[in-house]
């Protein structure tokens, strides 16, 4: 509980209507896309960097934990106030500060929807490449905190590769710029460390984005397979032929069935895998490359291939993939979406492990994967009202992550650690690794007030620096 005096001070910074403190209001801020909940002490709506800095200074002065919140679409508990304190709602800071086409840069406030950025650039012939599936409902600030990915990572990279500057309010209230419009500015790449720090290093208020000229042409293809291995071999063949497709998305049998049941796209219900492939670039040679890819699909036993000849047809081919989450969501009241990533060539092995684990716990698991970069998305279906169900799902999740690491991969490709995978960190990292990560955290937030209780498990040594070995 915050004292009335502190609430008044907050009201003085942002205005009385922009401070929420009633229990019913706070209960709408105790959750995000993850399954846990924790009540904050107050929610503050900010509309400028100054306001953010003032609120953070107050929190720092009073030793109150705080965290930045964009749209809270993350799946790992990144925006849950596990230790109470202030939730600083950034969604109203969404202005476009500058569009600088000559320098291929755009500066925006961090609360803007990611998809809105590309929508604004579209008529100018440019776009912002990272397109996480949540792009229309998530903020760029949130994307930065999570180092979000999406279906175009294999060719274009992740958020880290497209954000080259950020205005950040540090956890004691100082405002700094990390990076800027120029690349490789001298000094440690603090921005590289800040991106993906899940809102625990400070609050990003503005971002400088690298923007790209839109590709001249796009060719979209779809192939249906009777075995996941054949689909995976096709991906390998495409890469071996020297092509880096813009998209390589895979869906497995349960996902296909769910999609077919909800959308009737003519997918055979007994198909084992569907591969969605997109090539982009100059129009010259694109048809050629597409023909090559289709040939590769057939050589790898694709049951059926489809190619889009128009924008409408392209939309039709994407419908299944875009509707996959919706379709799978109707199979059960809830799902746990897992984010393990393995080396691309190990994808079929990883999927086999997932099925094994699903059988072991008697759980249905549908799979969508970013086949180009080995990022799996198993959807473990359950009912969150039944706690035994939920526990089983979480156990299965842990085992899947361990299996991914055993195959040379990682426990999270896009979604982050948050609360969800804190305990899994030691599957991947040694004590020394975690200690170095703790040092970086302490550089930004020595007191530990910025979004505490996330990412690093509690038992990692706190405080101090490098000790003589």
């Amino acid at each position, binding site marked *: 509980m915050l004292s009335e005096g502190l609430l008044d001070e907050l009201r003085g910074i942002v205005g009385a209507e922009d401070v929420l403190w009633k229990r019913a209001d706070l209960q709408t801020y105790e959750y995000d896309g993850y399954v846990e909940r924790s009540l904050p002490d107050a929610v503050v709506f900010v509309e400028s960097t100054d306001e953010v800095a003032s609120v953070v200074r107050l929190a720092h002065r009073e030793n109150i934990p705080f965290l930045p919140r964009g749209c809270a679409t993350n799946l790992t508990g990144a925006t849950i106030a596990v230790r109470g304190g202030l939730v600083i709602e950034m969604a109203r800071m969404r202005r476009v500060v500058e569009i600088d*086409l000559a*320098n291929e*840069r755009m500066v925006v406030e961090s609360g803007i929807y990611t998809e809105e950025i590309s929508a604004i650039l579209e008529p100018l012939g440019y776009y912002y490449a990272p397109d996480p599936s949540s792009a229309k409902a998530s903020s760029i600030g949130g994307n930065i905190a*999570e*180092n979000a990915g999406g279906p175009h990572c*294999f060719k274009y990279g992740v958020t*880290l590769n497209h954000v080259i500057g950020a205005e950040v309010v*540090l956890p004691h209230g*100082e405002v*700094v*710029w990390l990076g*800027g419009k*120029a*690349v*490789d500015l*001298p*000094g*440690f*790449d*603090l921005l590289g*460390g800040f991106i993906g*720090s899940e809102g625990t290093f400070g609050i990003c208020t503005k971002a400088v984005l690298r923007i790209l000229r839109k*590709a*001249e042409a796009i060719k979209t293809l779809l192939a249906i397979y009777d075995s996941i291995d054949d689909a995976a071999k096709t991906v390998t063949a495409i*890469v071996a032929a*020297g092509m880096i497709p813009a998209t390589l998305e895979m869906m497995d049998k349960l996902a296909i069935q769910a999609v077919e049941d909800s959308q009737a796209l003519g997918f055979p219900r007994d198909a084992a895998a569907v591969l969605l492939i997109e090539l982009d*670039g*100059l129009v*010259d*040679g694109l048809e050629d490359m597409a023909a090559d890819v289709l040939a590769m699909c057939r050589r790898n036993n694709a049951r059926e291939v489809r190619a889009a000849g128009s924008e409408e047809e392209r939309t039709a081919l994407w419908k299944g993939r875009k509707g996959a989450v919706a379709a799978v969501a109707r199979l059960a009241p809830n799902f746990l979406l897992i984010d393990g*990533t393995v*080396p*691309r060539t190990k994808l079929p092995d990883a999927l086999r492990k997932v099925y094994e684990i699903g059988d072991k716990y008697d759980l249905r698991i549908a799979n969508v994967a*970013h086949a180009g*970069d*080995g*990022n799996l998305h198993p959807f473990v279906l359950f009912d969150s009202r039944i706690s035994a169900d939920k526990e089983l799902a979480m156990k299965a999740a842990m085992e899947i992550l361990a299996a991914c690491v055993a195959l*040379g*991969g*990682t*426990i999270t*490709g896009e979604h*982050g*650690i948050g609360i969800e*995978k804190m305990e899994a*960190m030691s599957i*991947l990292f040694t004590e*020394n*690794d975690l*200690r*170095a*990560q703790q040092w970086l955290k*302490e*550089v930004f937030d020595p007191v530990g007030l910025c979004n505490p209780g996330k*990412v*690093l498990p509690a038992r990692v040594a706190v405080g101090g*620096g*490098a000790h*003589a*070995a």
Partner: protein
Amino acid sequence: MPHDVGDVLAELALLAPGAASDGNPQTNVAGLVPAVSVSPTTVSELGQIVGWASRRGLAMAALGGGTKLGIGNPPSRLDLLLDMSAMNSVTEYDSADLVLTAQAGVTIQHLRSMVREDSLVLPLDPQSRDRATIGGVIACADHGPRRRQYGGLRDLVLGLKVVLPDGSLAGFGGRTLKNVAGYDVGRLFVGSLGTMGVIAEATIRLLPVPACEELLLVTVPGLEQGRRLVARILGSVLIPSSLELLSPACVGLLGFDQHLGSSDTESLLLIALEGHPAAVERQVRDISAFCAELDSGTEMVESRRASELGLPVDEAWDTFAGLREKALGNGSCVGLRCTVPLARVWDLAAAAEERSRASSVALSYTMSCGTGYLEAYAAGSPADLRTFAEGVRADAEYREGAMSVLDGWSVLGEEFDAWGGRRTDFGLIRAVKEKFDPQGLMNPGRYLGGL
């Protein structure tokens, strides 16, 4: 050196018997010669040595190919040189997965050749490839002309294994393209100049060899035409892999003028084109058309293919990769690296030319016009060079960029700050240094703010 060299050598021999050591190394690190050098052969040996050295309070620096020893300020101390040349094996290489992991001492050229055999490309093309090591390239954030296509080191380094100043081993990232587990400490090591620890191993992403590679050599009479041409290209849908401008002096230094028959006032733009043959051809045509648009009587902008000029593409880039060494050995005694928002690099170059004339400094330079880099080589008297460098630094910073010294700090004088004006994040940079290297033993004094 706080201890007797003989004692040190003896202890090293006990600690790491496999590692050769030298009590009289000849290597000059920005003006300072260390007392002892040692060549660890394994990561754990490196860890042991660093741990021991930090207990002994010895200041250390890692040596790769020795191609960039002049970067930054001179070290405030240097006792022990960690010669990484014996850590030169490729730990893991998966051509199907497009990933390789190599120890820090492997040269870029070795990696390029190795993956080429599998029709893959190492997406790094820095200067002096035959000697520059992967560890050094990462520590110095040394990119090449095809950065625009390949991406920067921030995008290419998938994982790092480092030895921290206290000798402990830590791993960051991994070998997958996507990895957001934990805090990405490894990113800070890129460009850190070894001041946070020693890079022991790096995992790099690879790319497939393109179906077709072409190189256009475009002679450009002046910066203004160059700027217009590049702006035209960047505003189109074309996807050049490089847009590297060489000043006339650099053109001459590399001998390209002879292939081109160009005059000594013409600059040269190297435009690499990669991809499907039809796409490459289309770009060649379009760029020729853009050049024709810019022609105005006597001032011709001419685009020619390297193959037409009897210059194989690989050879052209190999020649280019020797430029820095040639330039800095050719009487230029100062090398400066600038980065600015990419469209402003032309102004920066024009301003630098103006300043060089005003301060009687001989200037040659290259620019990555699609990235915003300008690398300048200057010759002249120390006082003139100092005026010149201060001016260029002001120009770069005015354009929201920065300049740092690549080589020749001693010429510029003790007071010259090799890294320029401090930005708002300097407090954090200092805090990182203090956290990771509280004793200040890793390459001390060389980095920003004398860290």
